């Protein structure tokens, strides 16, 4: 009996530092190599010493797969390749390979800024790590070695996010990474074929249904912005240049068009071009609508959203500004924030996670006064709002995926234990398959039954079926015969007939 062994080093009953070790019929695969943004020391990276007691990672691991460019899925990669010394194959999709270095570079800056930080990867490390990765296309079967093959499927979530199917012989594991089963304004829905894996490892961030509340959140977001600009206030939205920023831009652009508003919306100069460049380059990864209209009109060439220049921050009157970086730790977003913070009419909307120690994190925690860089005291009078627009599958979506790929076992990762319990019960009840939710470090062993394909003649089957009266095609039943091996193929034959021929 073949065995699948799984040990999550991260993402087991938690969110952050995704790193799951899978041993599929003797092949060792690392799924994602993320970092935990909550730590300032080595604990931010997965502890690779648990992987192998002797020898190096290169010899132990057959390959590493990165599902998408978020740091909790790829942040430890340069550390692993350039500092720990992994030198084996790494797979990710083309957009992930293109965008990953931008995020890693950005995070490196935040980290190096912190006093006492010494052991951290450099820009050169990021470049070298990227050179070692192999980019894969959707649905391309990659032969890692003679026995192990992998295949990527569209996952939605962010540009370039993919699910990966790993196969050794007749056994397989499907890893979803983060995914979204409903299309949003710029990305499509995740899709996978009926691959019937022995194990499906799925994220479970939103293990309870929240689809409706996401729409409410969008309405709320637009209303808050509209109210603020109506009373003459300015709205700052600190974002990372790629990802949710585009989703929010499309959301605002559509709303502005519908409401016929003429209040200026700005996006950091230079970054719009960069974002547009990536979306043009990877247009095949966006949703149908964007793909269809791309030739006539690029959806990312906005009518209402204009490039921002620093001097505009001092302009009187209302405006909405998308500025980078997303955590308000430096750059334009921090500059604009400092100017607008003392005015209670203004508003800042944080659409994503902020690392502890950043200005973003402090204001989200309710700080009313901020000392920036040890000298400048700023009073925070503007309204601070937090609204996450991350695109994960909800419980309905997870169930839909299970229905679609028909796994023999399910494992929940990247979520909270309590919510997993709810989903686990639901999965067991609806699909009758075993569902696991290991904590970090916990080992799960799954025994897989191997099936041996054999040729059977129709006449033999008919004869066997007639023995039990009226045959019911939906019911399984045992067939008796002789199993013969000829030219490396197995044949099931009638015992008496075979005996006679012998």
């Amino acid at each position, binding site marked *: 009996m073949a065995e699948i062994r799984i040990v999550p080093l991260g993402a087991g009953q938690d969110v*952050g530092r995704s790193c799951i070790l899978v041993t599929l019929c003797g092949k060792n695969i690392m799924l994602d190599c993320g970092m935990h943004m909550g730590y300032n020391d080595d604990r931010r990276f997965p502890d690779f010493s648990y992987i192998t007691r002797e*020898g190096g990672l290169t*010899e132990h691991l057959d390959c590493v797969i990165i599902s998408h460019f*978020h740091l909790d899925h790829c942040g430890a990669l340069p550390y692993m390749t350039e500092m720990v010394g992994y030198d084996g194959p790494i797979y990710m999709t083309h957009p992930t390979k293109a965008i990953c270095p931008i995020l890693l570079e950005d995070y490196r800056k935040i980290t190096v800024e912190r006093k006492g930080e010494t052991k951290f990867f450099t820009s050169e490390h990021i470049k070298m790590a990227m050179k070692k990765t192999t980019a894969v296309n959707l649905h391309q079967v990659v*032969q890692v070695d003679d026995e192990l093959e992998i295949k990527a499927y569209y996952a939605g979530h962010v540009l370039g996010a993919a699910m990966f199917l790993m196969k050794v012989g007749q056994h397989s594991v499907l890893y979803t990474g983060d995914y979204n089963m409903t299309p949003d304004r710029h990305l499509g829905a995740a899709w996978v074929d009926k691959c019937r894996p022995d194990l499906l490892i799925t994220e479970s961030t939103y293990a309870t249904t929240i689809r409706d509340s996401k729409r409410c959140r969008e309405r709320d977001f637009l209303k808050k912005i509209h109210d603020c600009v109506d009373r003459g206030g300015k709205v700052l939205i600190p974002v990372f240049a790629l990802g949710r920023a585009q989703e929010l831009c499309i959301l605002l652009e559509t709303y502005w068009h519908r409401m016929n508003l003429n209040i200026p919306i700005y996006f950091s100069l230079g970054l719009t071009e960069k974002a547009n460049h990536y979306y043009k380059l990877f247009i095949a990864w966006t949703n149908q609508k964007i793909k269809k209209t791309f030739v006539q009109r690029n959806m990312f060439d906005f009518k209402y959203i204009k490039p921002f220049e620093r001097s505009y921050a001092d302009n009187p009157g209302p405006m909405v500004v998308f500025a980078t970086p997303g955590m308000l730790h430096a750059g334009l977003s921090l500059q604009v924030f400092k100017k607008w913070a003392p005015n209670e009419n203004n508003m800042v909307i944080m659409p994503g996670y902020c690392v502890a120690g950043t200005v973003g994190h402090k204001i989200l925690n309710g700080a009313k006064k901020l000392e920036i860089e040890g000298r400048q005291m700023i009073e925070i009078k503007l309204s601070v709002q937090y609204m996450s627009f991350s695109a994960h599958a909800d419980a309905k979506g997870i169930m839909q995926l299970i229905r679609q790929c028909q796994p023999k076992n399910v494992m929940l990762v990247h979520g909270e234990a309590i919510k997993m319990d709810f989903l686990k019960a639901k999965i067991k009840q609806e699909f009758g398959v075993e569902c696991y939710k290991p904590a970090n470090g916990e080992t799960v062993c799954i025994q897989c039954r191997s099936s041996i394909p054999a040729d059977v003649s129709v006449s033999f089957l008919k004869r066997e079926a007639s023995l039990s009266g009226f045959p019911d095609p939906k019911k399984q039943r045992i067939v008796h015969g002789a199993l013969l091996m000829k030219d490396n193929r197995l044949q099931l034959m009638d015992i008496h007939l075979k005996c006679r021929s012998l």
Partner: protein
Amino acid sequence: MDADISLKVNETMQRLLDPKLLVVDDTLLYQLQDQLRNILGTEGTEWLTDCGIVNFLEKCSMSTSNLIVSFSLQLCGHLSRNQSHFELLQQKDIVTSLFLAARRTENWQEASVRYAYYSCVCDLISYHTLQFIHDSDCIKGTFESLEDNSVFVAKKAENALTTLITFVNSHASNTSQSDSGNHLTKNMFNQCINLLMTNIVGDNKECNAVTHCLHIATDIVSMDPSVTHCLHIATDIVSMDPRIMANLRGKTEFLKALKQLWTNGIYSCRKLAIHLYLTLSIEDEDLFCVEDLMNMIQVQQNVDFTTLLTICESILTTRLLHFTFCQISTDILRIPLLLSMKKQLPHSLSNVDFPCMKSSSVCYKVASQALTVIGKLQNYFHQFLPMLSEFVKYLCHLPSWNSQTKKLFTQTVRILNNMLPHPDKAACDEDKIEANSLIDTLLTKINENNTDTMVISCVLECFVPMFRNILASEKLSDNLLVFINKRSCDQRWEVRDSIIVFIKDVLSESYSIKNYCCAEVQLREWFDMTATMVLVWSAVGDSVSYVRSAAILTLSAIFLKWNDLEKISIDGEVISLDIAIEKMLIILKSDTEAFSRRSAAQFLLNVYTLKGVQSQHMTVISAAMIDCIKDFDWEVKLKSLEFLEILIKTHGLHGEQMQCCDIMVRNGTVPGGSSAENEIDIHESKPLQQALEVASSSGLFQALLTAYNDEDPIVKDKAASLINVIKHRLIHVKADCNYDGSKNNKTYDDLKALESVDLNVNVLSGLFERKKLLVDVLDNILACKSAPSGDDDPNDNLLSLVDCY
């Protein structure tokens, strides 16, 4: 400790006990623990009571939250490192209660609680609270935990057991201890051994603890080979303490245990035996023999090759044993490579069958492990060179490659890179021929269409030290030229980048090799003859910033290498240093990617420091480098500051303080006023005054002020340290120069502005910084919400964590 911080800690501790509190981000508690650790070192025992930590720990044993129980156990472990803290906790029976709480079924089911429990046990053992360990019976169950489902818990339990045995052992051998101390350690030792013995069958012999441990380990593994953690414990114990190793040497009981380890025939036991044998340099030649090793391979068909390879590594790296023994070890290391190539095994192993290595993927995997071992055996490189060379050639001739073969190829090439004779070392003709033949094969491989990017990069890396061989051979040189011309326009940026980096590395390598000068002319000819310059120049405009950046640095290396090189001719067009500088200025100003701007700044910095650079170049560079202090990227700004530092030195504004200014700012020892010994010589003041005026007109001071006002702390700190240097210098010159604004308004204004910078504001002492961090964490915990009411979105708490951007 400040009263307000104590109050805040107290408030936080109370808050943590609130069962409704939702600490979604559990790293907050780890951060709190880290910060408390920093502070506790400077605080007395009474502070623990004042700030509510004792009260918190007392109540924690009643908590139903696993998170809080784990946190309190780890905090308790840390506190126990201090004897008086530990005594205070024990007066209230806190540690015992917490241990009992952890052991309650509902808590013990949680891996984080088990982990915290063993962490606490480790702390208690390490910090001499042995009596408590003995009385509390807390190591009970440790053995079962070695098999814990969680690898984290299993490892921690193993640590606890190892620490305990080591600690007990070191105390048992310390004769200066009091009787009661001896009695306790003996008791503990017996308890520990008995605990281990209850899991195995055997007698408890009164001898050295380590020997016992080895016995136990051997016995356990003999009974169940899968229980290898016992061997890990034994290895850890022995490796951990050199005193133990010294005591062991020559002990009869230990030798017996070692023999037992070897003779039971299990690989992992033998590995440990070899390890101990070689580490302790035991003079007992008849302990192991070649026949044993042969038997091991021949008798057991299903060879655990990983262990076998490690044994060979131990034999070959530690010291030379009997020649035959080393020979067979090197033969064993060759097996996976030979089987991968489907070749015949060496004579000594020709009768052995390896059914487990029938599949090529398994064979390749073991080959990869063997290569790792070979890579470490520098003394045996010569023996492996022909085989590795052959292996690379075999791989190159394979019709198709997958990731595994690619991995093997790169691994082998990297080892060969270290093995091949270095150009500045005298190599025999045979080696040279072998090297050239290998280079030829590799060149053919990378010249093939669709060769993998990693393979190309790896081969080019290997070519750097061998470049002289390539230059010496017309055939190889031509082949390399063909490759470079063909691949310089490759659509994969990784390939283009590797070629540019290769050119740069060849130039850098030529500096480091003594005898390279004889090839200098050839190298220059090769550069002139090939289109290398064209390639580098056109790569400066590549579409990928990584390639642009590498090209800029390579261009800089070319100009640094041949500083007489004023003109590079490209297809009739002349590329002079002027044109190169002009190009860099454009990149520095308008390139959208920071990576290339950083390199452009580095180029200009390098050229500026070149000897004999024309003054017009210096002026242009100076203006650009000062201007780039306003760049968006922090590293470009740092380059600009690096340049400003050079300017400060050039203008003689640095004095002796330059080297220590960074340290002073960091330590908060910024000079406060003039001192007699630092008074400047009156004759020096005049040129200094001029220097200040020149510096001011160049925009140096304004740039420093801009950098000081920057949002990036690193930029700001660096600027502060430079301003400090100038301020220090100004103190002495002020009286003599008498800046009243009549001579030069700009200089006067600039200096005034610099003077007004209060560097002390920017300086935080270590303690202040620590307190600030602690307050940040406390605020974060206090800001955590309570459990949601029915109306809240159940996902609200998680939303803050899931989207990294």
